[in-house]
């Protein structure tokens, strides 16, 4: 039997605000335990939450960016459960009337474009952290994270492979960092993914029973966890077993998922509207101001790059991987006037060097202006591709500006015809065997001679000129 995997994702994005969603405590990462936990965050009796305007604005920005409906009136609810890192005994979240509903995000997976529907996105507060290391048989609680604003973004079960799920998660990650509502730091937990996975025979309309994989904090784990889970479900069904609805955890060490709790043990959260918080109203003027301040979005920029710079759809997608990368490319393209060369250098030499040094584009030792100047020198014939790479190395090492490096290292292409002729004559004299072979009809011998001339000129000769001169001499 042929099986189809069905995946929906729930993504928790930590909103990039200065202060918490319901208190004036700092949200900065890495502070000493409980030094950023106020009376509201630790739930002392008598305190009241006051909603952070910045968090609401982040949610509006997201809703606009995915073309969603913004609920002009939205409501906070209490989600009740007991856990020591949730001091109130409930999490403030949004259930019946979330701020964002019915959006969509375009992805490209396996070369095909697809639209993933976004069911909803709602604001909520994060819990604290439990440290299970042994404190005399007790658990340590750090409430610095308690009350940090989150936007939980829920997709429809529109994905059919782990590749599509990863493409969606990546597109979402790019978007939330692009519009500045989340720092995207997955190690620090700013972007956490839960995956709902089920399988069904190809052609069947109804969905299979799903299991939810919790808290995946890298794209690689997301892919591995879904692949393992789907295989496990198919094997279980083919062996005559049944899938029970459950929550599972992924273990990166074994690459397997294991049950955390079954549906019978599932929480009964007893949601109800939070009487401490009034409904939130979004004014049209506020929404319009947020819309006006939105940057050009990745999809629009990809279309423009293809139109204005003539780069391929694939290249446009790579170049808009982040806002910083897109801005860098555009600066290089404009400075050099050579957008295609700029795209090749940014995605090739520059990206490779950044990856080798584990640097982000924002930390690049070579500025966009410098790379633009380098490309101009390729375009005007001063540098060959090979010499340009040497100049690039100089720029990377901080050896100065493009023209200074060219002068200091003698890297200009040879323009003096006399100097080139001397080299060609010497090479011909020293390689009589190749010359005879070429005259006997062996084309390969010609290439060997070109290589020798290039080598003797230490790469400075212009390959086109070498070709012409050799042909003339060998006639």
């Amino acid at each position, binding site marked *: 039997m042929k099986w189809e995997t069905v995946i929906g994702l729930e993504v928790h994005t930590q909103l990039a605000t200065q202060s918490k969603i319901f208190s004036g405590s700092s949200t900065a990462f890495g502070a000493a335990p409980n030094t950023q936990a106020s009376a509201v965050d630790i739930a002392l009796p008598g305190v009241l939450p006051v909603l952070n305007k910045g968090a609401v604005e982040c949610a509006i920005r997201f809703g606009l960016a995915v073309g969603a409906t913004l609920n002009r009136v939205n409501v906070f609810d209490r989600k009740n459960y007991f856990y020591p890192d949730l001091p109130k005994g409930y999490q403030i979240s949004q259930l019946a009337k979330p701020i964002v509903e019915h959006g969509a995000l375009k992805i490209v997976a396996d070369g095909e474009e697809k639209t993933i529907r976004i069911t909803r996105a709602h604001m909520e507060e994060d819990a604290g952290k439990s440290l299970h290391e042994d*404190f005399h048989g007790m658990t340590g*609680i750090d409430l610095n994270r308690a009350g940090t604003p989150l936007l939980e973004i829920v997709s429809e079960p529109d994905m059919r492979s782990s590749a599509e799920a990863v493409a969606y998660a990546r597109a979402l990650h790019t978007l939330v960092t692009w519009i500045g509502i989340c720092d995207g730091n997955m190690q620090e937990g700013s972007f956490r993914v839960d995956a709902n996975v089920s399988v069904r025979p190809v052609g069947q309309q109804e969905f299979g029973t799903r299991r939810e994989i919790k808290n995946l904090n890298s794209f690689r784990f997301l892919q591995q966890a879904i692949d393992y889970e789907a295989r496990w479900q198919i094997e279980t069904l083919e062996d005559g077993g049944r899938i029970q609805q459950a929550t599972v955890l992924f273990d990166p060490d074994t690459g397997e998922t294991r049950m955390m709790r079954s549906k019978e043990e599932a929480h009964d959260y007893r949601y109800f509207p939070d009487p401490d918080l009034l409904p*939130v109203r979004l004014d049209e003027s506020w929404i319009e101001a947020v819309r006006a301040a939105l940057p050009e979005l990745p999809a629009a920029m990809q279309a423009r790059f293809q139109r204005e710079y003539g780069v391929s759809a694939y290249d446009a997608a790579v170049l808009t991987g982040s806002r910083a990368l897109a801005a860098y490319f555009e600066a290089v393209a404009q400075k050099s006037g050579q957008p295609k060369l700029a795209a090749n250098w940014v995605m090739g030499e520059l990206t490779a060097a950044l990856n080798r040094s584990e640097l982000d584009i924002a930390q690049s030792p070579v500025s966009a202006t410098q790379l633009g100047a380098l490309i101009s020198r390729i375009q005007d014939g001063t540098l060959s591709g090979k010499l340009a790479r040497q100049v690039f190395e100089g720029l990377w090492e901080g050896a100065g500006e493009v023209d200074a490096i060219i002068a200091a290292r003698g890297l200009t292409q040879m323009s003096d015809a006399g100097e080139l002729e001397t080299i060609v004559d010497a090479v011909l004299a020293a390689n009589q065997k190749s010359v005879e072979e070429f005259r006997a009809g062996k084309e390969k011998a010609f290439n060997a001679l070109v290589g020798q001339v290039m080598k003797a000129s230490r790469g400075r000769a212009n390959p086109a000129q070498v070709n012409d001169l050799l042909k003339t001499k060998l006639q």
Partner: protein
Amino acid sequence: MSLSTDDVKRIASLARIEIDDTQAQATQAQLNTIFGLIAAMQAVNTAGIEPMAHAQEVFQRLREDAVTEADHRDAFQAIAPAVENGLYLVPRVIE
């Protein structure tokens, strides 16, 4: 709708309230009186009326996004039963 004693015990367990059978039966009777009240209200025709999330027709006031809280950890932890290295200690929880 009315509640069984088992419903009452389950709600008590979810709320971490310990009750014995006598208390459960007394609470069941009280809660069912409340359900009677709800049933009476549900007889009212509410067609065309927008559901309310709050008793008053007012909206949430918003705070500017700024850090206004200082660190009062020492004061808070002075009344905690057990602390170590700045952490609150609680009976061990492993899921």
